[in-house]
Every structure is written in C-alpha cells, then in structure tokens.
C-alpha cells in the first residue's frame, strides 16, 4: 500500500483522530522511514490513542507492552514455559524415554513469547505500543535498543530472531524522567501539546455524540482558559471529554456557573488546583469568558 500524506490525513480523520498537520507528518515519516515514533506529552493528550488508531487504519493487531518499574526482559520479550518443560521431562521418564533431547526442550514449542517477541514474529505487520516507557529504568531502555534499531532479538538457545515484518512501533512517555539519548536517537520524536480551541471543539464533537456546537465551543474555551492558570495538573483532553459527557447527561445547553461549580472536579483533580481555580478565576468569570464571541 502506497502511503501518502493526504491519504494518511484522511485515514486518521476517518478513524476519528482529530489532529494537526504536524502530527500527520510525524506519523508519515515514522511509517516511511520505518522508525519508531516516540510520542511525549502530558497525560491524556492522545498519545496511546494514536497507536490504537493506527492499528484500526491498517487493520492490524495492536500489541501493547505496558511499562512499569521493574519490567524486565522476561515479561517484555520471552520466557521459557518451565511447567511444560518439567511435564515433558516427567512424561518422558514415565514412558521410559531418554527424557527428551535438550534442544527439544528449548525449542519454540516451549517458548512463551511476550509482547516484543510477539510483535517481531507476527505474520502481518502489527502496531507495537510501548506505553509509558519513562516508567521503566535505564537498563530496560538499553535492552530496547537492539529491538528498535534492527528489529531483532537474540535468544541464547535459539539464536537471533529477525522480524518477519517490521512492526509499526509507537512509544509513549509522560516525561516523568529524561529518556536516554540512545533511545531518542533511534526514534522520530513527537511532542503532543494541548490542542487549540478549534481543534478541541472538533475532538469534542467527534467523540461526544449528540453534543451541540455551542456547548462544545463553550467547553473548549473554558478548558483552554483553565489551562492557562498555574495548576499542578492541567486538564487533559480525556478529562475535557468526560466533562462534556457529564454536561450532556445533565441536559446542559450551555455553561452556567452552577453547573461549572458542581462539575469542575471532573477537570481538576487536585485540591490545590480547585482552590486556584476558585480564587483566581471562578465559575462566573469562566462562563462569561466562554460565552464571548470568537475562539479566543
């Protein structure tokens, strides 16, 4: 399939992923250059969603490796099925057989592939999502180098396994720690920021069915204004959508101070942020700003 920029843009839009030309270009380059795409940004801006959308567009499997502290090669790459090996030995003993050759016990029949190996051995080009890679440690990052550079892994008992199809790799990071230069060098780097009001309106209208244009605009403007405050945690796109759904459920035609007061905890999840919002802005002023003409 010939991938072009216009085609990719339409495909992303068709899959319900509203984004700017900059994101389309980054994805396009990652696909054409067959490089992993490292997506960073605040939580809830659509990093993981991008991988899901790519798997829908290319109608392929999404293989997800959720990273966490303490993740190692056994859980990410492969593990030997020790129980099956022990059973095989036991059965061979009971049947008076020699106990099986050692190489039989270390064959692919006894291999438990984990996400990385699954992605490399998949018959059809999959999307490999390595989610929140900044939660792992530097040793695991170094381990990923071979996978992400050459799309191959070395298993001592089986040798080097090359990918049948180079997977589409998407790594996400919340920026909790600085990633190593070695990892960044191997990837196409994309920073996702919060969207502009216009984009956010489009996202709300695409994801929250039945919402009116006026309410969507007011919500987008309100959230945009709240993000300009000095907050510990700024509201993400996911939280904006939750808020929009809640307001729709409450039958809101537009924003009112009472509604904002009751539902602002869907946007602001820290007590300090709620206090900041109430002291520096407040529901009345927010509603007034949201109702002003234009997108500013």
């Amino acid at each position, binding site marked *: 399939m010939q991938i072009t*920029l216009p085609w990719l843009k339409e495909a992303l839009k068709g899959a319900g992923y509203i984004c700017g*030309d*900059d994101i389309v*270009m*980054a994805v*396009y*380059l990652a696909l*054409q*250059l067959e*490089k992993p795409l*490292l997506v*960073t940004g605040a939580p809830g801006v659509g990093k993981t969603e991008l991988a899901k959308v790519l798997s829908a567009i290319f109608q392929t499997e999404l293989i997800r490796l959720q990273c966490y*502290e*303490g993740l*190692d*090669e056994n859980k990410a790459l492969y593990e030997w099925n*020790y*129980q099956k090996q*022990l059973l095989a030995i036991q059965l061979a003993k009971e049947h008076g057989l020699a106990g099986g050759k050692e190489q039989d016990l270390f064959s692919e029949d006894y291999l438990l592939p984990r996400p990385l190996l699954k992605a490399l051995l998949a018959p059809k080009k999959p999307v490999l999502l390595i989610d929140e890679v900044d939660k792992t440690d530097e*040793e695991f990052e170094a381990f990923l180098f071979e996978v992400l550079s050459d799309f191959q892994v070395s298993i001592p008992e089986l040798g080097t396994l090359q990918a049948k199809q180079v997977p589409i790799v998407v790594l996400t990071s919340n*920026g*909790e*720690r600085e990633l190593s*230069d070695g990892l*960044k*060098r191997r*990837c*196409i*780097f*994309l*920073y996702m920021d919060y969207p502009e009001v216009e984009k956010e309106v489009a996202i709300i209208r695409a994801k929250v069915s039945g919402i009116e244009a006026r309410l969507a605009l007011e919500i987008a403007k309100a959230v945009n204004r709240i993000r300009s405050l*000095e907050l510990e945690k700024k509201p993400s796109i996911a939280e904006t959508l939750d808020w929009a759904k809640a307001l729709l459920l409450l039958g809101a035609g537009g924003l009112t101070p009472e509604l904002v007061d009751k539902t602002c905890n869907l946007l602001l999840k820290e007590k300090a942020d709620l206090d900041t919002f109430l002291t520096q802005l407040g529901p009345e002023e927010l509603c007034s700003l949201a109702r002003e003409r234009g997108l500013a």
Partner: protein
Amino acid sequence: MEQGQQEGLLENLLRFVLVLRGLGLKVSAAEVADALEALLLVNFADRSEVYQALRYTLVKEQRGEKLFKQAFEDYFAALGEVSEQGKGSAELSFQDQPLNLTREEQAVYSRLTREQRQGLQEFLARSSEGKNVSPRFLPVIEGLVKGQLDYYRRHMGEVLPVEFTGDEKLDSMLLNISQQLPEYEELLSRDMGLFSQDDLTRVKRVINKLTRKLSHGFNRRKRQSNRAGMLDLRNSIRHSIQHGGTIFKIKYRQKRQRKPDLMLLCDISGSMERYSSFVLQFCYCLNRVFQKMDTFVFAEKLALGGPGLKNSETMEKELQLAKQECGRGTNVGRSLQELQQNFHRFLGKNKVIVVVSDAKTMESQLAAAELKKLAGKAKDIIWLNPLAKSEWERYNAVKMLRKYCRMEECSTLAQLDSAMRKALI
C-alpha cells in the same frame, strides 16, 4: 533527484546541522542521515513540510524545538546574507591595528547600545592620537577594552552560549539567533541576580518543575532486580512454587532509593542581596518537595529557619527578620561553628548539606577549618555558588572552601538544574 542536486542538498543540510550543534542541540550522524531521507520524502516547495521533516528527525527534546524554529527561520531566510554582527569588531582598532578580540568579546560588543560602542571607539581614537603613543601600547589598550567589555557582559542579560563553527557566515548567524532567544531559553540562561519582579512568576514555575522532577527520582519503592545484589530468598522460593519447588530463577533485591535527608544553609548577607529572590523561591520549593529538610540562614551568625520560611506568604517577612538577626556581613566559619555546637542534633551521616552562598567570607581560615570538620559529620556537602566559575580563583576563601565540598557554579536556572541533578540523583 540528480546527483548534483543531492550533493547540494546534503551540503546545506550539514551546514544547518552545524548551526544546530552550535546552539547546543545534539545531532548525531545517524540523525543527519534520517533527515536527508526525510527530505527526499517531502515536497521541497512546501516550506512547512521541509520544516517538519527536519524537525522530527533532528530535534529529540521539547526544549530544542524553540531553538530549532529560530535557527530554521534564520538559516533558510538569510542563507546568503552576511549578518551585521560580524562587522562590529572591525570598528575597534588602535592606530589602524584591529584589536585581537575573542568571539565572545565580539558578541558582547555587538550587543552594546550605540552610545556604548561610540564610547569605546572614541576612547580608542583618543588613545591612538595621544602624545608619545606608539603601536607597542596595543596590548595595554587591548586589555583596557577587554576589561570594559567584561564589565558590560556582567551587567547585561545573558545570552545562550554558542559554540562557534569557524565559518564566518554561520557564526554570524549563531550570534544573531542567540540574541533572539525564545523567552524560556533566555530565562534559563540569565543570571538570577538580574531577575526582575516581573520574572518571578516564571522563575517560580521553572524552579517548581525542577524540584518536582528531583522528587520523582526518589519515588521508587523497593523493587526486585535481575542484577546480582542482595539475595531475595523469600521471593525466590515463592517464585519456585509454580515449578514444583525447583528454583529456576534467583531473585535479587535492590536497595531502595530514598529521598536524602537535606539540610539547606542559605547565605542572606549583603553580597547575596541580588540572589535573595531566587534563594527564597528555592527554599520554598525544596521545602515542599523534600519535607524532611532543615533550613538555616546565615550571614555573620547562624539562625534556624522558622516555619514561616516554608510558606510563600510569610517567607519574605521571615527573611527580613532573619537578616536583622544575622547581620549583613558574611562569616561562614562562625556560622558553621554555631551549627556544630548549638545544632549538632540536626547533623548525621545520612545528611546531605546544600549551601547556597558566594563564599565571600571573612576569616576564610576558620571557614575552611569548620567546613572540613562538618564534612566528616555529613554524607555530602554541595556548595551552590552564584559567583562565575572564572572568578573563583580570585577569592582565597573560595579556593580554600572548595577543598572540602563539591562546589558548583549556580548563577542561572540551567546551572541550578544541572547542579542539583548531579548532586542529588
């Protein structure tokens, strides 16, 4: 694309990469190869596509994007022009001999106001025509001009330090770009003593982010490790249950990374007046993040920081009271003596002591002796010195104190970031 066109494209790309490297962005050869491949995939006629193709392959950190944007605009807009900046140094000559200025000094000269430049030129003109003046006075005149440029440099806002390439056109461009720094970059590289009240909100945000990131480095629970370390017998046996009791894998335990116990010693003497806003904010943010932190302030005497220092609203008032108590001069030795005699219960082998001071102290011998004693009672001593590193050799006290602690230059936020990372993580 024809061979000749490709070579031309590569040459331009390499020169652009030189500019990026001069601005401090790390660009490897592999990334240059990726950038070249990416350029072949996009439409050359579309400037935004070319911009994005280069941006995604050459820039691998968010902070670099603003620098890249500025560099791209300057490089591709003015590829053939010679910047005015390069011409400035030709104006400085003594008896028709140009002064031998370094690139940094030329950069400072180019940033002077017209009046300041005229002042220097007039001085050189008068010196050149003076009675009994000969060309062998050139080194003396050069020294005077360099001294004046150094004075101007210390009193103007900082620019992003750049690494010159040796190519005149590119270096002029680098100078130009560094002076049109994005606001954020300028804030990071500006001397903290020059922050105005208007900057404090942004400074607060940057320090807040810095101290939160520091805290993240320590928020790790005890975890298992595959690297050899302490044997975790319990988990090894538990893991073996699934294999009928056969221990296939030995589990190891890694030492938990704890937040260090911190003690902050802030110099609030007259010589640190310019940095007091930064010191205030730093104390506040550190106090929020490292909750078990003891704060002391000192000048001629030492005083224990009260709870008011932990609160941004009462901090300024608390500091004024402390200044009245501690005096305006600096006596590090006496302050450290008081710390060890009257507050020894706050010390311990697990304590990391962070000192924020320019080390311009009286009784430097006493200061060094007391610091040496203190070093034996603490885990580590990190000295954050706002004084420029190039000036440390001029002060005897600084030279003596450096022997007993890790002294880091800390006049800008970027240096603070780097020093704290090295020291605490």
